């Protein structure tokens, strides 16, 4: 019985899984800190929220590039 086989699709999936670790940690930390900042100083919530979305956009790009590489690697 064949339990595991290394295929292009499998490797591509693995690439995406590895690529999602960093951004996952990054977004979690970023939003957590932003919520803390908003809770401490509710009057600056608007500014914090804009900066938070900006930060999320930059961090998320890494995960999304991993997602694109997944499709390229499947071929």
């Amino acid at each position, binding site marked *: 019985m064949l339990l595991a086989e290394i295929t292009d699709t499998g490797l591509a999936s693995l690439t995406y899984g590895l690529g999602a670790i960093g951004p996952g940690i990054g977004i979690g930390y970023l939003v957590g800190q932003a919520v803390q900042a908003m809770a401490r100083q509710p009057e600056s919530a*608007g500014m914090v929220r804009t900066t938070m979305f900006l930060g999320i*956009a930059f961090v*998320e*790009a890494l995960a*999304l*590039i991993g*997602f*694109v590489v997944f499709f390229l690697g499947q071929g």
Partner: protein
Amino acid sequence: MFALEFPPLSHIVNWPGLAGDGQWWEINKVVLVYAFAVILTLLVFLLGNKGKLVPTGMQNVAEMAVEFVEDGIIMETMGKEGLKYTPYFLSLFFFIFFTNIFEVIPVIQMPASARIALPMVLALLAYLIYHGAGFKSHGLGYFKHALVPPGVPWPLLILVIPIEFISKFLVQPFSHTVRLFANLLAGHILLVTFAVLTSGLFAAKWYAILLPLPLLGVVFFTAFEVLVSFLQAYVFTLLTGVYINAAQSHEH
């Protein structure tokens, strides 16, 4: 087990031409979405521009949107000197939002941004605009402004200048494109996955009792994709603002 087969990627993002198949002017679903989005964006400008003192209907929506773009995006990223970009930002925001929202509108259900052409054109347009703003504001000194960060000791510049060049002139438009493109493609694939699962379970024997789960998934992720459509339009516009500000600012 379920005899499920996920359709290949080319089947869910490529659409057969409705007219002029294979020609350069081929009209397919994605082109129709572009046309709808352009018309809707123009309608926001035309119907919102009545200029009555007490706004009603569409003017109300348009005034809220202008306020959101001016206060939420332009003032946050560029400050007062960015206000001249309001028409560009407003049309950018609405155009991206309308092309995205067609992802969840029944019958059409195709985000035009899930094809890389649209995000790429918008990102290249933004690329021209922010580097243009930089050259207008600094002249040829823009290269120094863009490539040499202040307060870096000179031996490090050998390392810093190539990095800054690659990140500002090559990677920045790429990541600007991919952020919008991949988000919408991922959302589209997610919806297709749950829809395929639902239809597969519909035909299955006793597994059909599991049917509510993927069905709930479709409903939940449709709502989620509405949020994503809005958020990605917001983020794309916000980043355009940040890039313009970084190119033209004088604060050193």
